[in-house]
């Protein structure tokens, strides 16, 4: 059942055990949608977490993260006017 009113929101996936708590994503997030954990991950660091809302899919956290595998940002397809990821394709 597709409900027209269900709005797909973008969201980040932060892999808990790949974060070293450098905080770049947390201060880089203009939406203030990320926070530091209270507990440690398996490799001994606090880790960045998504607060669960307000991600606008800008990709800033992904780009500023020094760990290539740690963050993914999932962005639902929308109409043109998005400004995310403007470093790719036609800007080269």
């Amino acid at each position, binding site marked *: 059942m597709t409900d027209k009113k269900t709005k797909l929101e973008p969201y980040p996936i932060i*892999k808990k*055990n*790949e974060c*070293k*708590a*450098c*905080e*770049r994503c*947390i*201060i*880089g997030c203009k939406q203030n949608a990320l926070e530091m954990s209270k507990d440690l991950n*398996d*490799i001994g*660091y606090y880790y960045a977490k998504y607060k669960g809302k307000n991600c606008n899919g*800008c*990709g*800033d*956290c*992904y*780009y*500023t*993260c*020094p*760990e*290539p*595998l*740690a*963050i*993914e*940002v*999932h*962005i*639902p*397809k929308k109409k043109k006017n998005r400004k*995310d*990821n*403007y*470093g*790719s*394709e036609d*800007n*080269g």
Partner: protein
Amino acid sequence: MKILKKADSIYDIFDRKGDNSPYVTHYCAGCGHGILHKLIGEVMDELKIQERSVMISPVGCAVFGYYYFNCGNVQTAHGRAPAVGTAISRAEDNAVVMSYQGDGDLASIGLNETIQTANRGEKIAVFFVNNTVYGMTGGQMAPTTLIGEVTVTTQNGRDPDYTGYPMHMCELLDNLKAPVLIERVSLANPKKIRKVKIAIKKALKIQKEGKGYSFIEVLSPCPTNLRTNVEETEKFLNEQMEKEFPVKRFRDRSKEVEKVKREKSDFSTENLDKIFNIDRTKVVEPTIDPSYEELNVKIAGFGGQGVLSAGLTLAQAACAEKRQVSWYPAYGPEQRGGTANCSVVIAGDTIGSPVVESSDILIAFNKPAYEKFSQNVNENGIIFYDSRIGEIDVLNNIKTISVPVHKIAIELGVPKAINTVMLGVLMEYGKKINKEISKESFHQGIKETFRSKPKLIDKNIEILEAGSNWARENLKL
């Protein structure tokens, strides 16, 4: 759904850390390298150049680049990435060569090669990571350390009167004609990081199209050595580093320039044989003959007397006899008049060292050579010397033979050929000590030595005979 995530050109697993954390880099928290790796990987994907790419890792924190970039990888000696990059780019014309270097590697020990490579306009994309310190070794002053910046080795801040000024690499290279792209970018924050990606894309597009040298300087955070938290690090990059190292595109000639034209490399065996003058039909495999006792020959004199070529001829002659042979030259920087000597070892089995400490035969073409090497002649050894040396001191009853090489050479019209006269004497002496090298083998040796001057071959064979005749008549042992 669009997903921003790791590029295919970056590995799925980072074996460097291994064990319990195979998905994290070996870099410190907050380091710029991981960000730059990610961006380069993305651009490799987008330009579809992964299969053509060769990443050159430096010495420094990024030394383990090959654990991250899923492409061709080479890790080079400190500062030598430009030389290795040049070689790869010229040998593999289609390769997209990237050299990834830090400020110590590129701007200090590798500075000369960097400038020369840029000046030649090699087809290389250089990613120069400038974080103002030597990271891996613990935060010492680097060429790019800012004035007043405190590092482990500048405890009171960098003092330009004592250690000079920060090195501006983009500005320096911008004086050269050849580079296609020179740009400085910063990893301070997400907005700037996207501009870094655009610059990388430009640089790699130039490589994809084979257009020449591109240089991207990346201002990069090193919170560990700067001892700063995340906000302070960003501030340091934005306010202090950018003040000294302005972020801008210094040049972009990518639209003006054409593909660099290089001759096609040919590494086929046939071609290499041609270059090195190798005739595989004439290869002589040495035999193993334990009964043949090793013979150590030292030939010494002035540079220009044919000392080294006499040794080569002897070595070639012994090769023709299927002996194990080594030839080892030692000479000064002077083209003429310096001292020169060579050691020839002829053996029946594998030679341990080509160095001759004490010789069985010494050939001395001048007095200093006689004096220097006559002390290291074996008890049953022999010394042949140019009669023009005159009076000599004889040591330990070693046999010494004065040979009028110059007189004989003059008689045959080639005063310079004293070395060949001496070889003729040696040929005769070989028979007497049961170490015969045949006349044919000596002729073969002369042919090899004078391969590039064929006119001299017959004359030298004649001179060889003259030396041999002299020995037959005068050599009394």
